[in-house]
């Protein structure tokens, strides 16, 4: 391993950051698709309007969804225990997400294939579910990460999860789910203001503005709850970022307010929650002003900041355990080997800029408003 220029601890820290980058990439890129899906029944009243809305994201949603696939793959590759515990522990929630996501590709592709009102309404409903449900569950999942998840390990490191599906739906987790839905709806609304005109843009601006304000309020409420009541976790034993990944060699304590410890120790990190609130409020105001592009940047900033807020709060935890706190997963003891992290880092450095370059080229080619005539004029439009 002498050829790897970075030590293990640094690589782990870089991958913690890259995990954040990928999650933000997913939330910002696929997030507006989910938001547009969730807005579909509200902003489009006629079939022609619905068709326009679907075609605003039609050409790009597939590429955006790869952020989710890449995020899953990166968690698998860089933090295998996190992938193992969270995906099996949240089993039914994951299944519901999959169910909703399965509806999306077929919903897009199939809705325009048959000229029948009921057929189209069915797939429009599928697209709504495919947008709203994952947005909600991803937020609920993040809420549960903050609360800690009931799991432990056998000595062979077999994960054992002792919770159930409905236990995930605590008031705090649902609040987190609503933060996710409202912010993604605001984000999707900004995209609709960019890409459409007339009544669709009017409605999108109205509902998006309401959602953004609600998102800011709910997010702030969640922050207060975290600061006062929700127990956080802290590693009490000494941390050595160069040790082999085994989550069973540390001691962890749990008490209310601990999730604020990082913010107290490093006050500059407060910029994340502050931007989370300001971004959402700014996007509400910009939607009102019909500045779609700026509103999109504002809501995107807010979403990124919300993800960073959670990351900063729980650092160095990835997934705390509520039933056996010592088994909680941290970036220091739940990562891949040094060599795998290095290989993945090199791949990311090589390919991610290429991905970003051609993605932006695609958006440039597809620029311009989507209207009834532009949809009619596009072969293969949905």
């Amino acid at each position, binding site marked *: 391993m002498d050829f790897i220029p970075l030590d293990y601890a640094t690589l782990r820290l870089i991958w913690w950051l890259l995990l954040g980058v990928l999650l933000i990439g997913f939330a910002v890129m696929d997030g507006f698709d989910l938001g547009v899906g969730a807005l579909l029944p509200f902003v489009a009243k006629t079939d022609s309007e619905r068709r326009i809305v679907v075609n605003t994201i039609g*050409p*790009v*949603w*597939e*590429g955006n*969804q790869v952020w*989710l*696939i*890449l995020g*899953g*793959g990166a968690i*698998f*590759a*860089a933090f*295998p*225990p996190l*992938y*193992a515990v*969270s*995906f*099996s522990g949240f*089993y*039914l929630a*994951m*299944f519901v997400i*999959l*169910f909703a*996501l*399965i*509806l999306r*590709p*077929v919903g897009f592709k*199939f809705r325009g*294939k*048959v000229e029948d009102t009921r057929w189209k309404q069915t797939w429009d409903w599928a697209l709504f579910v495919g947008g709203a449900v994952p947005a909600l569950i991803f937020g609920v999942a993040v809420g549960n990460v903050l609360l800690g998840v009931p799991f432990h390990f056998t*000595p062979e*490191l*077999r*994960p*054992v999860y002792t919770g159930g599906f409905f236990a995930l739906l605590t008031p705090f987790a649902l609040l987190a789910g609503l933060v996710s839905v409202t912010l993604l709806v605001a984000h999707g609304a900004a995209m609709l203001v960019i890409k459409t005109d007339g009544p669709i843009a009017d409605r999108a601006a109205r509902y998006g503005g309401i959602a953004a304000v609600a998102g800011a309020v709910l997010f702030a409420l969640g922050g207060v709850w975290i600061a006062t009541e929700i127990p956080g976790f802290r590693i009490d034993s000494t941390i050595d970022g160069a040790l*082999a990944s085994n989550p069973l060699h540390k001691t962890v304590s749990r008490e209310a307010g601990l999730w604020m410890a990082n913010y107290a120790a490093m006050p500059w990190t407060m910029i994340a929650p502050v931007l989370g609130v300001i971004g959402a409020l700014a996007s509400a105001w910009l939607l009102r002003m019909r500045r779609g592009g700026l509103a999109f940047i504002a809501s995107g900033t807010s979403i990124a900041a919300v993800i960073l807020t959670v990351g900063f709060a729980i650092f160095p935890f990835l997934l705390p355990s509520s039933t056996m706190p010592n088994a909680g997963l941290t970036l220091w003891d739940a990562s*891949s*080997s040094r*060599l*795998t992290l290095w*290989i*993945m880092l090199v*791949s990311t450095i090589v*390919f*991610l800029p290429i*991905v970003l370059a*051609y*993605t932006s080229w*695609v958006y440039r*080619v*597809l620029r311009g408003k989507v209207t009834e005539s532009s949809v009619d004029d*596009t*072969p*293969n*439009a949905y």
Partner: protein
Amino acid sequence: MIDMTVVELSRLQFALTAMYHFLFVPLTLGLSLLMAIMESVYVMTGRDIWRRMTMFWGVLFGINFAMGVATGIVMEFQFGMNWAYYSHYVGDIFGAPLAIEGLMAFFLEATFIGLFFFGWKRMTKIQHLVITWLVALGANFSALWILVANGWMQNPVGAVFNPDTMRMEITDFVAVIFNPVAQAKFVHTVSAGYVTGAIFVMSVSAFYLLRGKHRDIARRSIAVAASFGLASALSVVVLGDESGYAATEHQKMKLAAIEAMWHTEPAPAGFTVIGLPNQAGQHNRFEVKIPWLMGLIATRSLDGEIPGILDLVERAEHRIRGGQLAYAALERLREDRTDVAAREAFDQHWADLGHGLLLKRYREDIFNATEQEISQAALDTVPRVAPLFWTFRIMAGIGFYLIAFFAVAFWLVTRNRIEDSRRFLWIALWSLPLPWIAIECGWFVAEYGRQPWAVEGVLPTFYAASGIALKDILISLAGFVIIYTGLAIVAAKLMIAAIGKGPDVLAPPAHDGAPAAIDDVVPPHPGDSDRLALDALDPAPAPRA
């Protein structure tokens, strides 16, 4: 103890969702490349009909692609959902190719697929052609990385077990990528996809020719598909042979099970063409054998010996005892990481650790396993022979049939007689399901033949499963069956409807106010690009009665 019902249901769900996903993948692989070839002809010759062909097959491609995407996400998530210990145990190696697949391949394919459909009027001809090739390239890169991952499950190279982390860790990534099993499987699998695309295009075109409809498009499509299909069908069988050769070296039990070879035969072993394998009696009834053939295929020599199933069971028993020692040393290491004697014992036996884990099915403290449990665990290393024996023969039979089929098709095309051969057109139409049957059989052989291992010799399947509740797996399994059945019906109906509408509706000829990608059509110059070699495949329509 591990709940075997949950394990069996998890296996069933993974098998169903994977085989269902792979109904769509091969067509994506083959059709994307065929469309890229057609569009290349369009750009080279400027003939509008080749654009219409690309667009028409593109519509069918799109329905298939949507299904592939919908079912593909499920595959990536299921490793963590249903195979949590697998994810922990080998994620260090297995996760990387999956993530790189997303980064390098699927991003490319999925980002440009939107432009392929929506960009016809927004780009120049060349730009759109590049997009189409990038989609095809992305699909093929995807297959590469997925098969690197799968190849590692068959032949786990370049990794060791780390007692500190209780998992396999990578030591040599280059070995993982250039794993001979993975490389052979990659070319075998993508070639099978190309064959599927070629058959699909031939069958649909044959249908049109039989009806006397869309002859201009159907005839050209058949010409492309016949030559492409012949090359691909040859490649499938040659690389299938390469896979078999790789299995001789790395997966002896799978090979012996496929051949229902219970006992080691003197070299060169005979090939059992057909017979009735009897698992309990460990022999075959009604065998028809070709002497020497098996030894020649599998060892490429006259003196290479292929071990039979019962010999391999004996070897497995030996390794299980080694695995017990490795596990005992591992337990001591867990208590005291500095125990030098335990470390030495572990280093000596670690390669057998996986075999030791086979005993976990019978008891937790595997070091105290009884003789009977050890011999039972050794017998567990034998997959069920009859299903493997038969699915392999179905796959190989279809493979050889398809070579003959494409050879005839190619001959008819070059003679310009395909339209007159109604019998062949009927055969082409009814050959449609064959590549899918062969491919599903092939995956069955590959994965069922690997049992009882999730990772050959490293991690038993039952030990790899998540400890989820029985009701959870029942809910998800029922859910998948319902939604997948519904989607299959809808997709099939849409596909048939699209074929019924035909290219005139879905890809109408260029007209006034034609889009940019069509505007710059090169006016045909006599004796110029118009008369490329392709015209051999593209004769002027002959007047017919």
